[in-house]
Structure formats: structure tokens, C-alpha cells
């Protein structure tokens, strides 16, 4: 790794002030993505600020209104093992358990999980292929290159990468909020607005600015939480990023879908909500497979596969169907 300095923060407001005024400084919590990026020279911060000592950011707690608050410094394994999370929002626990490995889940923080950067091999490659995320303006090697793992929705000619977080897909389905503390105030960002589509500025993964620190994730209480499921399909059965994944959360009335929330991973630069399918699925019986299939297909009319990932269009619809059925059985 390149040479850098490291300091420890013990006060949140001070940590944010230091970050706001230093363009060469990065926060570090678990470090499981940041150290990899630094070893691959995809980011070369001159200074790291260790935020693990900031007070009260590792809690998992119920707020007075019943919503779940997950502190940004809580570790993936603690959230996945938490019995309230497992009972109220199984989709969250499952998305975490299907990610990374036991060792990495013990290290990685929740805030860092949603900040992780794409696994696009061109982005991670230190040998200098064109990549607009690494070097804005250099081009996208994946657009007409090896793009089997890349996006089928929302991509631009500048970038066809996907977001790697499984947890983010579950949180998008549940309409969670990212609680961000900046220099002036604390704000709540709806989860589907947190990550960006690439457009012409793919170097920006999300809407955070310098001087912003994720302090928590808030998950609103909703009946669909209990009837939820995360289904992830990958090239090997464990310890691998998703080809396609689906977070489904449903409420039913005598086996008819009363409300549906569907988000997909592995298909876009951000967790991809299937809004058209959610509307079309309302009122459909869980036992009417053909109707479920055609309702899901509503969200795939605008799919735009690349040269090597056409299979994702069909795979994703099948994964959505199965996730929906499993979630339905939990209601």
C-alpha cells in the first residue's frame, strides 16, 4: 500500500469537520473495502480517520415509533444475528448472511457496506484499462468488453457497473432511510435516492458530499417486513457477489398480494426497485403463477442487456418470482 497517515476520531462533530476540510482524507471503519481499493490503487487517500471510536454509532435499537435503527458502526454479523432484525425483517438478516464471509461480516460496518464500490473488474484493475470511475473521461472498458456481470437497467455509455451490496437491495425494498450527519445538520435520505445512476459522472456512487457521515440506517415499521425474503443467485454457492438478487417484502390477504415491495441487485448502478411490477402484482393470488409472471414482466419492458448479459433478463424475472413466493409463505 501507499504511504498514508492515520488518526483516531473520538468526537463525531470534529470528525465531520476534519473530513469537510480535507479532500485527501477518508473515513475508515471496518476497512474491508477501503483497504482492497487502496491495495488496488483505486483510491489513494493521504490521510485516514479511524471512526470506530465514535460514541453510540454501533447500536441496533427500536425507536419510539417502532422503527428499527441500525447504527452505522454496527457490524454485519451483529445485525444478521440480532433476533429482532431476524423476526421483524428477515430480508435484512438474509441479505447480510448471503454476503461476504464469516470473517468479513465480523469486520465490515453497515455504513461501509452501503458505501462499497463496484466489483467491475476493469474498475478494480490496477493495470490501467479505461474506466470513468477511476479516471473520469478515460472511457468504459466494460461497455463493449467483458460485461457478463454488468447492468441491464439504468446504465450509460460512460459506465455499466453494478452496485455490489446485498444489504442495500433489502434496504431499498423496505424504503429505509440513510441518516447522514453533515456540518450543519442531520438529514434523512430515502434509500432509493442514496445511490446514483452513472449518467455522465459515474465516479460518484452516491449523493454524499465531503463532510457527510452516515450515522445510522432507519427501517420503518411495516407489515411487509415480516413477509420478506432475499434470494441471491451467483456463480458459486457461497462467498460470491450476486449475478442477480431480489429482495421481496409482501403483505397478503387470504393468499392475495395486498402490497408488494421488490428490489433487485446485480442489475444496475443502484438497487433497482421494480415499481411497475409492484403495482401490477397488487391483488394477484400467490397461487396464480402465470399472473405473477406477467406482472413481474411489467418491470422488464425497459431492460437493456449488454453484449454478454442477456441471460440476466430472464434469470432476474425467475428470481423475482421465487423470492415473491417465499416471502408470501412467511405472511
Amino acid at each position, binding site marked *: 500500500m501507499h504511504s498514508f497517515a*492515520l488518526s483516531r476520531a473520538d468526537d463525531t462533530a470534529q470528525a465531520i469537520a476534519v473530513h469537510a476540510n480535507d479532500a485527501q482524507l477518508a473515513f475508515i471503519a471496518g476497512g474491508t473495502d477501503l483497504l482492497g481499493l487502496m491495495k488496488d490503487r483505486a483510491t489513494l487517500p493521504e490521510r485516514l480517520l479511524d471512526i470506530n471510536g465514535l460514541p453510540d454509532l454501533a447500536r441496533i435499537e427500536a425507536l419510539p415509533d417502532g422503527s428499527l435503527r441500525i447504527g452505522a458502526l454496527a457490524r454485519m*454479523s451483529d445485525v444478521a444475528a440480532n*433476533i429482532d432484525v*431476524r423476526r421483524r425483517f428477515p430480508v435484512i438478516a438474509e441479505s447480510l*448472511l448471503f454476503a461476504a464471509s*464469516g*470473517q468479513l461480516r465480523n469486520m465490515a460496518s453497515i455504513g461501509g457496506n452501503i458505501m462499497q464500490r463496484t466489483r467491475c473488474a476493469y474498475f478494480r484493475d490496477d493495470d490501467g484499462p479505461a474506466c470513468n470511475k477511476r479516471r473520469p473521461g478515460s472511457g468504459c472498458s466494460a461497455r463493449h468488453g467483458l460485461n457478463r456481470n454488468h447492468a441491464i437497467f439504468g446504465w450509460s455509455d460512460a459506465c455499466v457497473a453494478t452496485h455490489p451490496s446485498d444489504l442495500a437491495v433489502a434496504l431499498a425494498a423496505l424504503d429505509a432511510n440513510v441518516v447522514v450527519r453533515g456540518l450543519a445538520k442531520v438529514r434523512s435520505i430515502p434509500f432509493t435516492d442514496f445511490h446514483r445512476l452513472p449518467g455522465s459522472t459515474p465516479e460518484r456512487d452516491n449523493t454524499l458530499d465531503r463532510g457527510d457521515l452516515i450515522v445510522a440506517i432507519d427501517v420503518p415499521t411495516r407489515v411487509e417486513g415480516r413477509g420478506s425474503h432475499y434470494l441471491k443467485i451467483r456463480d458459486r454457492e457461497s462467498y460470491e457477489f450476486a449475478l442477480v438478487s431480489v429482495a421481496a417484502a409482501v403483505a397478503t390477504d387470504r393468499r392475495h398480494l395486498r402490497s408488494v415491495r421488490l428490489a433487485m441487485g446485480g442489475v444496475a448502478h443502484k438497487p433497482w426497485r421494480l415499481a411497475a411490477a409492484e403495482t401490477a402484482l397488487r391483488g394477484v393470488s400467490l397461487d396464480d403463477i402465470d399472473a405473477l409472471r406477467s406482472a413481474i414482466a411489467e418491470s422488464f419492458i425497459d431492460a437493456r442487456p449488454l453484449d454478454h448479459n442477456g441471460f440476466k433478463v430472464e434469470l432476474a424475472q425467475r428470481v423475482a418470482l421465487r423470492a415473491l413466493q417465499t416471502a408470501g409463505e412467511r405472511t
Partner: protein
Amino acid sequence: MGQASRSQSNATVESRPDGARMAETGSQSVRVSVTVNGHARTMVVEPRMTLLDALREELALTGTKKGCDRGECGACTVHVEGRRVLSCMTLAVMQQGKRITTIEGLEQDGSLHPVQAAFIEHDGFQCGFCTSGQIMSGVAMIEEAKAGWPSAATADVTKAFTIAELSSAEIRERMSGNLCRCACYPNIVDAVADATGRS
């Protein structure tokens, strides 16, 4: 990663005018005190040195192996505060005051840990390069299962998990962060299963 000329500044923590406490600057080395295998140890490390390199090169504990150095193979698994972590993706400078256990610290009074003994009985290795990581991972994984942690192989995460449910499929899933290029997986799973009953 190692630097030929390393500054030996022992400045640990100094105040900056803006209030953030700086541990050091630039490539200056820092003194970090930890407890390794029950003994108080001090490492003098650059901020960029991983815990893996510090254990091997500063403390001469070479039982912990460096495989991929990217958090993908698990060969460098150690315990920090009782939890299994990847020492290659951990900065030594961030471990001040932490309790660390390596493969060298598992045996007690000359007796192998039950997981170590089970690996020998079940022939859970060939070349041996991944073995210390496998064993460190297995030891902590059994504790995670005893604590009721579910896994991706658990049928229903909404229910409590008990150690009696730690099937071969569960062990395979929970050990998937440790690769074995000799492919001794069946014997590794048998060894961990056997040790679960004994530890």
C-alpha cells in the same frame, strides 16, 4: 510493503488545533500495544502495515499465512477480541489495546485445541498452507454457532439457531471464507463437525 529506512518516532497521540487526535503523520512509525496469545506485546508499525505483516514480521509469529492479501482466501484468519477476522484487511495501527489470538496461541498447557486435534485425526490438510486459517476460522465459527448465529444455510432465520443444527451444510457455508487449493474440504468439514462435539 516494508521500508528500508523507517522512522522510529514514538509519538503516539498528539493534539491538532482542530481537536482531532492524530496518531501520527506520513510514513512515521507508531508504537502499538496489544495482547497477543495472552502476552503484552508492542509493535512498531507504519500506518500502512497490515496486522498480518505486523504479526509475521514484527512479532515473528509466522503461523498466520499470507495467501491472497486481498481478503479472499482466509489463510490469514486470526481472532481479535475473540472474533475471527482477516488480518490482511486489518491495519495493525488500529489494534491498540486489542486482544489477539493466533494459531500459536490455541494450545493450552501443551495440549492441542480440540479443533487442532480433530484436523490431525481427520487428515484435514495436504500442503498445510491454509490450515492455520482454517483452524482459527473453525474455532471461532463453533462459538458463533453456539451463540445462536444463523447462516445462509439456515432454513429459517426467524427462528433461534441451536448448535444441534450445525449440519455439514451449515459448516460448509460458515467455512466458505477459507479456501483450500488442495481441496481437502470433506475432511475439513468432518474435523470441524467432530470438534464441535468436543469443544
